[in-house]
């Protein structure tokens, strides 16, 4: 391997690469990757820069480009040029180009590039519209060369008389649209903070949309923790993302504290740990009594910083006992955990996609039934959503300020009923879901016991009390789901005192199709057999199709003439389903497998949590003491700012497109 740097070879390679680039520039698009045909006539060469007329005119002062030598410290190019231990061929293009700059700048600028500087800075050419490039009528490749030469020759001369200080460019009218756009954005963003008359847009709903089961499962999981639980909370965001994620982080911490669980806060970002401590101090300030204050070492723990990024997270995963023993201040915590699996939940608050990826790769990849509850900023949302759709061990993501607002509304609603002076409805039972919330992939989750899975269908049935109609469940939102299928008609509320549900039983001797929509052209989700019983959610407009609920919480449709409507008790419903499964014909196992494959193929394998069994935790004051502050104006400012951004982008691009068309027309005319 060539360890010595050979300048002769280097210059030859530079020339060869330049020739290759020139050859490729004449073969644009996919043609560059095709073999060159032999004997193909070469294109006529364009006029080169050396053939330009030599003008001897006084130079104008230009923007300075300070040479590296004036700062007393070598530039990156000079540092790279001094490196000799790596063969030149190993360098990628950018590093090679940077190194090439160091080679050129070591020579006197005007020695090899004589007269170029004068040409570029001549007042005649500079005064032309479009500058020197349009005046010389250069090709695009030559324009790039001119720009490169402008950069190279501009160095030594511009530091004269300025002491190395950059000069500010003169004000130009072309900057006016840019300033106007920025001023418009800043103005409209400030309006909601000044007056409530500019409250544009709807506030986020009080419940997460049912099309997004991840955030709902996230909330339910945190609402099901208790005082014996320990939650690992990863603060993976710095001050840059504080405006976006602070509200969400505070709500999550308040939720955990209100459930009397203990958060262990950890981070691979040292500043984030300090920031988390300040958030908890803010929570303490909102609490009235001194006896209600949250104490480090009792109510929460700040664990030591995890250096090394992914390496630190691996250490957390593999050597959790060591990590948990030391606090952020280097003091012993007194915690005695042996493994990360002892954490009830792991909550990740991440600002970047890289943080999400590191946690998934280093923490979730280890054996153990770990589950990661993910909250992110908007930048990391696509990656987190891809993970959540693919892995049932990832719950969420809850994203940004709008989801934080919804989360806060849910907390206030559920914990507000626990206030001592709140009106108590004696008939109001615990909130339940009208749908079967057991995931089709819960068998993969070790924390979900078999008993829970067996009991879930019965507990998920609508309660026959008049105070708990199906529409009152936390999964229901006021906004209808964006589906093309007609919505089922309202299901009549059960009136019997015994727990009953409205169901249909398959009466056809042949297998019947269960479809995604109430037409025969809709996709077949699976098959039903004689004796199968499905819970009814409603019917279509003319009653020819039933909207039913499949095991796993999937909504589907079945033709009415193939089934018989019945009202069954919960036990009959569960028993009917069990007997139907037991009596299934041999070929049905294959069909069921196909059914499950279809489901897993056609929809994300998200995790669905058990609904909370109680309305809230033991310390509602932690939720209700929160100062909403400028939460609502911030959301309205986001709306107005987005509108202004759309206007500026559309207007600006329209102007540029029109100008380009006019130029093209003028050039064609001339």
């Amino acid at each position, binding site marked *: 391997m060539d360890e010595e740097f050979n300048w002769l070879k280097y210059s030859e390679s530079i020339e060869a690469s330049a020739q290759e680039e020139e050859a490729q520039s004449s073969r644009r698009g996919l043609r560059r990757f095709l073999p060159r045909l032999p004997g193909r006539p070469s294109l006529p060469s364009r006029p080169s820069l050396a053939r330009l007329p030599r003008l001897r005119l006084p130079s104008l002062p230009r923007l300075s480009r300070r040479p590296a030598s004036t700062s007393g410290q070598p530039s990156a190019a000079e540092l790279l040029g001094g490196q000799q231990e790596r063969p030149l061929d190993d360098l990628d293009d950018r590093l090679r180009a940077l190194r090439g700059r160091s080679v050129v700048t070591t020579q006197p600028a005007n020695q090899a590039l004589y007269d170029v500087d004068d040409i570029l800075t001549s007042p005649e050419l500079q005064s032309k519209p479009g500058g020197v490039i349009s005046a010389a009528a250069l090709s695009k490749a030559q324009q790039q060369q001119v720009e490169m030469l402008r950069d190279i020759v501009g160095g030594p001369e511009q530091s004269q008389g300025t002491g190395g200080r950059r000069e500010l460019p003169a004000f130009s009218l072309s900057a006016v649209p840019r300033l106007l756009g920025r001023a418009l954005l800043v103005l409209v963003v400030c309006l909601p903070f000044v007056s409530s008359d500019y409250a544009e847009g709807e506030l986020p709903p009080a419940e997460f949309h049912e099309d997004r089961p991840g955030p709902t499962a996230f909330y339910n999981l945190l609402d099901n923790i208790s005082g014996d639980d320990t939650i690992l909370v990863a603060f993976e965001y710095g001050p840059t993302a504080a405006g976006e994620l602070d509200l969400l982080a505070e709500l999550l911490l308040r939720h955990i504290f209100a459930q009397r669980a203990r958060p262990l806060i950890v981070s691979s970002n040292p500043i984030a740990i300090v920031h988390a401590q300040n958030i908890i101090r803010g929570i303490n300030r909102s609490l009235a009594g001194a006896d209600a204050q949250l104490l480090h070492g009792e109510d929460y723990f700040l664990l030591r910083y995890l250096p090394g990024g992914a390496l630190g997270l691996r250490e957390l995963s593999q050597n959790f006992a060591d990590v948990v023993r030391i606090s952020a201040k280097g003091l012993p915590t007194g915690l005695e955990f042996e493994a990360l699996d002892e954490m009830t939940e792991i909550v990740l608050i991440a600002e970047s*996609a890289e943080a999400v990826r590191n946690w998934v790769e280093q923490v979730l990849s280890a054996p153990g039934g770990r589950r990661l509850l993910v909250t992110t900023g908007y930048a990391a949302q696509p990656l987190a959503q891809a993970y959540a759709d693919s892995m049932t061990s990832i719950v969420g993501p809850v994203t940004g300020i709008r989801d934080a607002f919804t989360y806060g509304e849910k907390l206030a609603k559920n914990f507000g009923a626990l206030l001592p002076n709140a009106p108590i409805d004696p008939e109001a039972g615990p909130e339940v879901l009208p749908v079967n919330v057991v995931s089709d992939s819960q068998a993969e989750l070790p924390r979900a016991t078999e008993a829970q899975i067996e009991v879930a269908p019965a507990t998920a049935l609508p309660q026959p009390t008049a105070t708990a109609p199906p529409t009152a469940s936390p999964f229901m939102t006021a906004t209808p789901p964006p589906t093309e299928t007609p919505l089922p008609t309202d299901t009549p509320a059960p009136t019997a005192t015994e727990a009953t549900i409205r169901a249909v039983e398959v009466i056809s001797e042949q297998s019947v199709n269960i479809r995604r929509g109430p037409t025969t052209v809709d996709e077949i989700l699976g098959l039903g057999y004689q004796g199968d019983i499905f819970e009814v959610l409603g019917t279509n407009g003319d009653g020819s199709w039933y909207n039913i609920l499949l095991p796993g919480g999937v909504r589907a449709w079945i033709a009415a003439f193939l089934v018989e409507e019945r009202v069954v008790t919960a036990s009959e419903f569960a028993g009917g389903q069990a007997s139907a499964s037991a009596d299934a014909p041999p070929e049905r196992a294959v069909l069921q497998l196909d059914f499950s494959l279809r489901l897993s193929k056609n929809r994300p394998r998200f995790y669905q949590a058990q609904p909370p069994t109680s309305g809230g935790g033991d310390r509602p004051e932690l939720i209700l003491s929160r100062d909403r502050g400028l939460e609502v104006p911030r959301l309205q400012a986001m709306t107005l700012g987005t509108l202004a951004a759309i206007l500026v982008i559309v207007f600006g691009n329209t102007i540029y497109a029109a100008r380009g068309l006019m130029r093209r027309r003028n050039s064609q005319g001339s």
Partner: protein
Amino acid sequence: MGRGQRYGIALSAFVAFAVGVVTALSLLLGDNPALFGEQPGSAQLAGLLALPADVLLRLATIVVALSIVIGIANLLTVHVGRLARGKAYSAVMLASFGFTVFWYVARQGDTSLLEAVQVPIESALAALLCLSLLHGGSRVLGKRADIWGLLFVAVVVLVLLGSLPLAELAPVQAWRDWLMRVPVGAGARALLLGIALGTVVTGVRALLGQDRSFRG
């Protein structure tokens, strides 16, 4: 290049290669008793094989932590040197550093300076990014007036419109949701695949000695 320097290069390359191979084998074989079957002592053997990777990676973690301390010391040294050359900004930086340390010690661990100074400044810088993005977005067609530029602008406008909480824009929101779920989701997965492949390639290059960044 002298003979000693060549030996040094060869030795450092060998050490890096050996450590890399040992770590990789230890990670692959360690803590996996199933590889050795249901035999007595297989668990102990698997644990023993996992030990080198555990030790080496923890050493790397310690070195990274130590590098932060070295980085702080280097920062102070550089700015002291700049201060000697009359750079005023370095004086501000050194004064801020000293004041922060003094504040933390004198007020017994008070970290309110982070919330009062660092968070507003960094948040403001992040907000400035919005202005730059807006400016760039408004002149896309000025820089690239072709079908791809037009497509880019259309998608940006569609996503922004879909993010507006206005009931009148429900159809646009459905399109925006589709964009975020299908193309953006595909892009996110492609990024993950690319990162994984790039990581493997980088590791192999380091093991083969083609990438010798460990020499600084």
